[in-house]
């Protein structure tokens, strides 16, 4: 799975401009599904048909956070804005790669009165040009962080683990599963990072009975980090809530019971910020019971995100097990 993950994370595909990673995913999964389509926003929707079975929509988002150029000044420096949640602290000294192949460095204006991290407005991208005329990028060009995949053994590091690791889990599950209790819609969504936009229209089109997002979640196990219980290496996380959604208790129960039955380690996750595609599914049409299978990830939205390969493998196992039995959607106790 490391190879799969490595290939995925290194493709540049920021929100709104996902075609490169979509093409790669499509190439891999085409022989594994009955039908495939790309909808009007660019979501890749793949179907494994099954009659008389509840319809499950699984979603992992293809897009990563990125930057868009807003202006190139007379000296050839480019100003930019974020596509998705790019944090200034992660930009200082960073490297970027544009979709057209150009690479650059992020520089910062000096602030004589404060040593605080400046906002993105006070940063710029330097591609080594000497004027606006000889600059190979211009207004509207998009870029992503430029960091390659690093194998630390049990753990791996790269930009775009959020959510290429989710994409990898979905692809791996597709490869390993022969039968399931559901009619399966594997959705590789776009524009999650700018407001779960792809999933919103995909859910409307798919009309699922049940929805499950595979995405990363933060951890609380770094020095003076987030105040949360999830840790790297303790298993995939079953989301209880985040800032966008309260997971359906029946879905949580289904996930917990499945994990315990299959003896897969898991964690119960509460995230006090952030949201996922599952929110979009939950609020679609007449409502859809939804949940999230989370992969613990350190340094989310930084150029070097870290996941534990055991967590990833267990996430795949848990997902495969989940697909074997439909949840009981009768009212909870």
């Amino acid at each position, binding site marked *: 799975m490391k190879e799969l993950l490595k290939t995925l994370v290194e493709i540049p595909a920021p*929100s*709104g*401009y996902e*075609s490169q990673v*979509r093409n790669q995913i499509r190439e891999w999964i085409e022989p594994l599904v009955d039908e495939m389509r*790309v*909808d*009007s*926003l*660019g*979501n890749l929707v793949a179907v494994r048909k099954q009659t008389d079975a509840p319809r499950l929509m699984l979603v992992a988002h293809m897009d990563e956070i990125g930057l*868009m150029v*807003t*202006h190139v*000044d*007379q*000296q050839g420096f480019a*100003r930019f*804005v974020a*596509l998705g949640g790019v944090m200034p602290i992660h930009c200082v000294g960073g490297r970027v790669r544009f979709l057209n192949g150009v690479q650059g460095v992020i520089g910062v204006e000096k602030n004589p009165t404060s040593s605080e991290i400046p906002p993105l*407005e006070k940063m710029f991208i330097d591609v080594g040009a000497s004027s606006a005329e000889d600059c190979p990028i211009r*207004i*509207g060009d998009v870029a992503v962080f430029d960091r390659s995949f690093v194998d630390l053994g049990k753990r791996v590091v790269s930009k775009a683990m959020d959510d290429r690791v989710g994409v990898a889990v979905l692809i791996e599950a597709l490869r390993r599963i022969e039968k399931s209790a559901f009619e399966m819609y594997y959705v590789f969504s*776009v*524009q999650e990072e*700018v*407001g779960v*936009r792809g999933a*919103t*229209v*995909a859910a*409307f*089109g798919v009309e699922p009975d049940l929805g499950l997002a595979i995405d990363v979640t933060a951890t609380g196990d770094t020095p003076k980090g987030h105040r949360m219980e999830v840790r790297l290496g303790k298993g995939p996380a079953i989301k209880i809530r985040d800032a966008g959604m309260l997971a359906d208790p029946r879905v949580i129960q289904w996930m917990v019971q499945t994990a315990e039955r299959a003896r897969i380690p898991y964690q119960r996750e509460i995230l006090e910020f952030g949201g996922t595609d599952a929110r979009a599914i939950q609020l679609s049409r007449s409502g859809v019971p939804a949940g999230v299978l989370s992969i613990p990830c350190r340094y989310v939205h930084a150029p070097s995100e870290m996941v534990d390969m055991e967590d990833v493998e267990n996430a795949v196992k848990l997902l495969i097990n989940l697909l074997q039995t439909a949840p009981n959607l009768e009212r909870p106790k």
Partner: protein
Amino acid sequence: MGRNTETLNQPTITPEQIRVLEKLCNAVAVSGNETEVRRLVMDQIKPTVQEMRIDALGNLLAFQKKESRKPLRVMVAAHLDEVGFMLTSEEDKEEGIYRFELVGGIDPRWLAGKPVQVGTERRKGVIGCKAIHLTTAEERRNPFTVEALRVDLGGGGKAKVGDWGTFATPFQKIGGSIRAKALDNRIGVATAIELLKYEYPALDLLVAFTVQEEVGLRGAKVAAHALNPDLAIVLDCTPAYDLPLQVEDSFYPLENERYNTRLGYGAAIYLSDRATISDPRLVAHFVRTAEKMGIAYQFRQAGGGATDAGAIHLQRAGIPSISISVPGRYLHTPASLVRIADWENTLRLVYHALQSLSVDVLQTER
């Protein structure tokens, strides 16, 4: 920049259109209360459409043809509402003094000392403030807040809590520019009215004059759900912050790099704002059209702001969308400013883009 024969029969901005824009700008239609402008629009488009419908929220939906026959259904949206305020509490009935709250995004620092008009009767009044003689230097350093300001309508009882109001700036043409309130988005509305006068053989044109854009893109959401077009073009007015830079550096030549758009540089094509990443296929189509027809255009800088496209593109199973705006200075303030040439270029760009749209535009994947 060669012009070809296709441009000969294209829309232009005539004194008549400016008169229509004047009527539109002088009308009062704050979000939630768009009746006056909606009626003006109905009157204007009556001769050019075969069917009109007003939906549950007050959107005016206009159909050039009753029967839909073409393979491509294109929605053009322009919002009717303007920013303003609502009276929320009567403080002194006899004096006619009211507390108010803003409707839409207005920077409160532009409010003090301005004439306003309130209610369907357009009662004249002011947002006043204490005379400078009665203030201290300390006070003057702090900006007025909406909580501290009041609407004063003079001698009592002529308005009531719940009344909407807005600035009372009269429309004026000044050389090649227009100065008025509510250019956001009466200029988009005027453009849509004009576009309806022409025929588009390859497509069905559906125009939605939407309500409540300024309070959350509400009208556009339901209009798009109802119309379910193949693609959508939103006409709006976008800020131009192209004022002189007032920061200097003796080592590095600084520029104004956050102008958003610039007056005089033509129609503004959106790439990305806070709510929408424009469909790249539509962006390419508009750019190709502008280049081919020799129409001045610029890219609106990515970043903040939103248009009706934000709601439209997420309706149903997704609707490819793009926004095209006339650049304007001082939007959401008492007096906004646009260049007539930019308006004309915007009108022409959208006209030609519509003329050359076909199902091919959406054949490639996004």
